[in-house]
């Protein structure tokens, strides 16, 4: 368990002054990582919001060695860094203990970078890969990604006379990572700082590849007031649209269970990308969304060996 007092005394290794939007959660995640780590870190990042807003030459927010090379290869790039580390250490040319972290947005992780991520995980590099998942390609102007949830309006899944937002449900990337058989996989949220930092610490302590999928609310693409970032993350978790869990050596554990599972509507209503769900003619969408969330949550409960609560009749009217 992370201790807030101790964390607050740590030197800032992800500094302020970056150009992320007010209310962006990606820098919060980066900062939490820096707090979580005791060893020196070498960090890599895919092209995307986090990288372009934190490394605007001649400035940098990374008070730790950092590398960005391209969009789809954060994991492959860090594979190389880690390989160099192993080689130099083995040869007695380097003696420090260092940890390696690769960041990618959902686009750079779920879609274009999936291959290089999969390869790096399969090869067993000791690295923590963090997907800051804001559910779209935000850097290029809010286009849909494999992580975009059902019904969401993006610039490539527009709402129109026929279009009703994204037609497909999101890809379950966390499950794909679990299927890699790597020792540590988790889902986190910056709204649950203790849960997330503890997961980061566990991941960094893992002798092998680890992966954390972090839901990172984007105030621009999701369109909510900047001060509500943390609130949005909380709603995602409490509606079970984004459950918090970890899979340690294949064992599922739900790390936070909402006292009362809220209807997903409470979460969707806060974001303008779902506003059409509440318009006449689209009444079918919300139950569809809710059904998907319920099914996924129940599957997760089963995997974690937890009882599935009896279904309550859905209130209509």
């Amino acid at each position, binding site marked *: 368990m992370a201790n807030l007092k101790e964390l607050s005394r740590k030197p800032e290794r992800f500094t302020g002054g970056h150009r992320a939007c007010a209310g962006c959660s990606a820098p919060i995640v980066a900062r939490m990582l820096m707090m979580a780590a005791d060893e*020196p*870190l*070498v960090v*890599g990042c895919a092209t995307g919001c986090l*990288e*372009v807003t934190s*490394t*605007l*030459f*001649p400035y*940098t927010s*990374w*008070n*730790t*060695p*950092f*590398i*960005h*090379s*391209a969009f*789809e*290869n954060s994991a*492959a*790039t*860090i*594979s*190389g*860094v*880690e*390989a*160099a*580390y*192993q*080689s*130099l250490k*083995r*040869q007695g*040319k*380097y003696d*420090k203990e*260092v940890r390696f972290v690769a960041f990618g947005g959902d686009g750079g992780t779920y879609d274009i970078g999936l*291959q*290089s991520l*999969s*390869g*790096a995980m*399969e*090869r067993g590099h000791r690295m923590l890969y963090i997907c800051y998942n804001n559910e779209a390609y935000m850097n290029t102007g809010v286009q849909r990604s494999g992580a975009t949830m059902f019904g969401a309006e993006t610039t490539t899944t527009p709402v129109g006379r026929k279009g009703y937002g994204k037609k497909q449900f999101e890809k379950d990337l966390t499950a794909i990572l679990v299927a890699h058989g790597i020792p540590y996989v988790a889902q986190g949220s910056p709204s649950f700082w203790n849960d997330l930092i503890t997961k980061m610490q566990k991941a960094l302590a893992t002798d092998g590849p680890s992966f954390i999928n972090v839901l990172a609310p984007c105030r621009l693409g999701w369109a909510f007031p900047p001060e509500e970032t943390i609130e949005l993350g909380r709603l995602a978790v409490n509606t079970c649209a984004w459950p918090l869990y970890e899979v340690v050596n294949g064992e599922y554990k739900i790390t936070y269970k909402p006292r009362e599972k809220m209807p997903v509507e409470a979460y969707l209503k806060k974001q303008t990308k779902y506003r059409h769900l509440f318009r006449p003619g689209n009444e079918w969408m919300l139950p569809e969304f809710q059904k998907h969330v319920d099914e996924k949550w129940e599957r997760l409960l089963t995997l974690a060996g937890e009882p599935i609560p009896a279904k309550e009749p859905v209130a209509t009217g």
Partner: protein
Amino acid sequence: MSEAKIKDKAAKGPEAAQEIAALTGNEAVAMAMKQINPDVVAAYPITPATEIVQIFSNYVADGLVDTEYVAVESEHSAMSACIGASAAGARVMTGTSAQGLALMWEMLYIAAGLRLPIVLADVNRALSAPINIHCDHSDTMGARDSGWIQIFSEDAQEAYDNTIQAIRIAEHPDILLPAMVTMDGFIISHGMEVVKVLPDDTVRQFVGTYNPKVKLLDVDTPRTFGPLDFTDFYFEHRRQLAEPIAKAKEVILEIGKEYGKISGRTYGLYEGYKLDDAEYVIVLLGSTAGTAKTVVDDLREAGVKAGLLKIRVFRPFPYDEMAALLAGRKAVGVMDRSDGLAGLGGPLFGELRSALYESKNRPPMKDYVYGLGGRDCGPALIRQVFDELQEIGKTGEVKERFTYLGVRE
């Protein structure tokens, strides 16, 4: 490798210590890599380069090198991992060919832009479509503006020698650019030849240790690699890449000479064969030089002043040297083993015409695109080029600026 070089009397000393081995080009490059003993190799197999990394992974398995071998899932990741490893501070090598190099394309620019001295063996192969595994130079040519140094080899010996020199060239403090050493697919990569191999110690001493000044693993001095540049800095940073390119020729010559001292084989930017008094000159790259030399010999015996100019370093291109060497010839035939599809022949032709633009004594010049997809180019075809050059020499007139040699029209 010309006869003259092997028989070089002055080279007796260093030559004596070398072992004579029968090696394919791939084996020769893998051997050079073993002797260099890089810290990291990240690679993905592709015909005809597969053997290089396969043989090398055996060296790793047998503990003959200290290398961390990363068997990545694609060439894009191979180059990405090389970039990460090189930025970390390691000496890094890889090998590929054709589609593999094409898949690396995005990362080639990044390797150069970040000034990472990665050395890559490119076994020249045609690009799809249609898919073809045999030799032409389209792959290397596709990467010619990426900021990589490009060195072509005529045979397995040169592939071996060039690989060793490339490490020094790339890592030279004034250069710090990635370098690719190429050899013709199958013709060199799979052809067995006599190769003189230097003792391990000699190679190790020659390449020395790599101690980069700036590296990611220097955790006490954190640095950001690959930041975002806007209009205020990008141009200046790209402009800075021109400095090592301008310096490279000098460094390549220096290292070529130094290499001559340990091996008896001195290297320059190009090799002239019976060039001094030649009136009809063919200019080309790679293995066809060997065939062309025999044709030149035959023509010389018949009293024709034929000569060959083999370009070794394609990037940076030796423009001034080419201009000085080719001005005043009766006719020059350029042989391009890739088609520029630019409407005016291949890339080598473009470079040479550009090199000669200011020459007062500009020779008539014609391009011959040949050998695509491994199409054989024997002495008869080269003879055909020389015959045509003599025709052009008589009239001074070039009817067609470029043509395809050895193709069914």
